């Protein structure tokens, strides 16, 4: 499923003393099946932007075109768009409300008026996708689960609608390292299994570098640039000036380069760095 954002501008509370421009002329093209990372410091407009992608916010000007359909033209069924473009908010566990995990995850599918046997199938699938045992958790109250489990139930609640695009706003915020890795692994498996488009909003440059194909950078309501992780993280100075950073391992390799070591500067993961350093040592040994 493709999404095209054209000249999107959004102004909060126009005409009041609290007027603020959250997005300025944003252009963005997301092709089917891509894995995007969206970065930017707090208040740069990331959340506002992603809420436009499933029609939760209406643009002040500009267009959002999902699979060739302009979201705000007449006769568009916004509910069906929201089902296709799943949005997982920050701290999604705060939206849980039902008595049992099963009922909560079923909320989305039930709103789609699916038959009961379909609903059950989807709930089972969704819970298993996020690594929870359906039989074990279905009758528990979501509030007696651990923080990480609650978050997974909440993500399952969105997955149960079988979205073709999944947007996650900081899905790992406030989780311990293990919980974080598990959630990220599940996103990767999910993408492989269902071939969906994923947009990941994150402050962790490591996670972004490890996972995504393309990165978009937001700064003060504008999309400053977009490109592959190597292109984006190549600009160390530009990113730090915006209050962002680069993955620690990339920084380490850049510093080594500055010290005159013969290593590449566009390293993104620890594994790549290991290989690169070993290569450099061997080169030195043979020279």
């Amino acid at each position, binding site marked *: 499923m493709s999404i095209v954002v054209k000249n999107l501008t959004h102004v909060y509370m126009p005409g009041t003393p609290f007027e603020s421009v959250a997005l300025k002329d944003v252009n963005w093209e997301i092709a089917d099946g891509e894995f995007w990372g969206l970065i930017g410091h707090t208040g740069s407009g990331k959340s506002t932007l992603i809420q436009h992608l499933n029609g*939760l916010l209406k643009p002040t000007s500009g267009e959002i075109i999902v699979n060739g359909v302009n979201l705000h033209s007449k006769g568009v069924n916004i509910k069906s768009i*929201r089902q296709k473009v799943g949005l997982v*908010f920050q701290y999604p566990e705060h*939206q849980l*409300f039902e008595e049992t995990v099963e009922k909560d995850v079923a*909320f989305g599918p039930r*709103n*789609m008026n699916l038959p009961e046997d379909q609903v059950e199938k989807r709930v089972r699938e969704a819970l298993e996708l996020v690594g929870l045992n359906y039989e074990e958790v279905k009758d528990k109250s979501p509030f007696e689960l651990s923080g990480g489990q609650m978050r997974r139930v909440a993500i399952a*609640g969105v997955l149960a609608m079988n979205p073709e695009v999944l947007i996650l706003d900081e899905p790992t915020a406030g989780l311990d390292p293990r919980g974080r890795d598990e959630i990220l692994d599940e996103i990767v498996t999910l993408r492989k299994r269902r071939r969906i488009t994923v947009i990941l909003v994150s402050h962790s440059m490591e996670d972004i570098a490890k996972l995504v194909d393309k990165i978009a950078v937001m700064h003060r309501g504008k999309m400053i640039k977009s490109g592959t992780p190597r292109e984006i993280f190549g600009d160390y100075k530009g990113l730090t000036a915006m209050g962002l950073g680069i993955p620690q391992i990339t920084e380490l390799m850049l510093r080594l380069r500055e010290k005159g070591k013969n290593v590449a500067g566009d390293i993104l993961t620890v594994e790549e760095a290991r290989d690169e350093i070993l290569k450099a040592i061997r080169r030195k040994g043979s020279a």
Partner: protein
Amino acid sequence: MREITIGQYIPGNSIIHRLDPRTKIIITLVYMILLFVLDNFKGYLFPVGFILLASVLSGISLRYMIKGLRPLIFIIALTFILNIFMIKGRILYEIGPFDITYEGLYQGSFMAIRLVLLIVGTSLLTLTTSPIALTDGIERLLSPAKRIGVPAHELAMMMTIALRFIPTLLEETDKIMKAQMARGADFESGNMIRRAKNLVPLLVPLFISAFRRADDLAMAMEARCYRGGENRTRMKELRMSKIDFVTYIVFIIIVLGGIASRFIW
């Protein structure tokens, strides 16, 4: 959700903003009484003039204040309509069993204007006074009553906290609403019962988060050794200045003018 302007503070540095909160509270109270004392349209020239003057001085556009009336339009309209039909007198027009009377029309529009002035006047207080200043003022005004056991400080603290959390809770409501809408929830259509039922996915998380916040706040206050008003000093002492006295004089003239209008017209 974000359209609610009543109770919202707009930061500024106008004369009205700089007035002592006690002055503004007292004047607002007397102003409200005045609105009920006045009994004819001409008398309302005084409060209307007062509001215009104050809003010009405060630098807050009248349009913005009138926007704040929007959520209350239903109550104002209801008052107007009930008065038109319920008051007996010279009949102007008949609709079936109901009569529109001259007196009803007069009384209805009078009541509507009274309500509008009441709302605009009181929102002027909250628009120009920060919640902190407001509760400070209330605490000071209530402090003489401490002697007879009124917990002035605790009351003020409760109000401060309540006011401080209004925007937070609105934001939270907005967020949860959107999250549920992303899962296909519908808050806008259906009949009354259906709509009330649809609010459950919003209200449960909202209550949970309100309790969580209350718990966190209590903990944070205790961690900083908060234990009520005893012996607390404040960073900013309230002090009446020259503008306050001028304001009182102007206001007293307006009140006297208004009261005099009852007898003259």
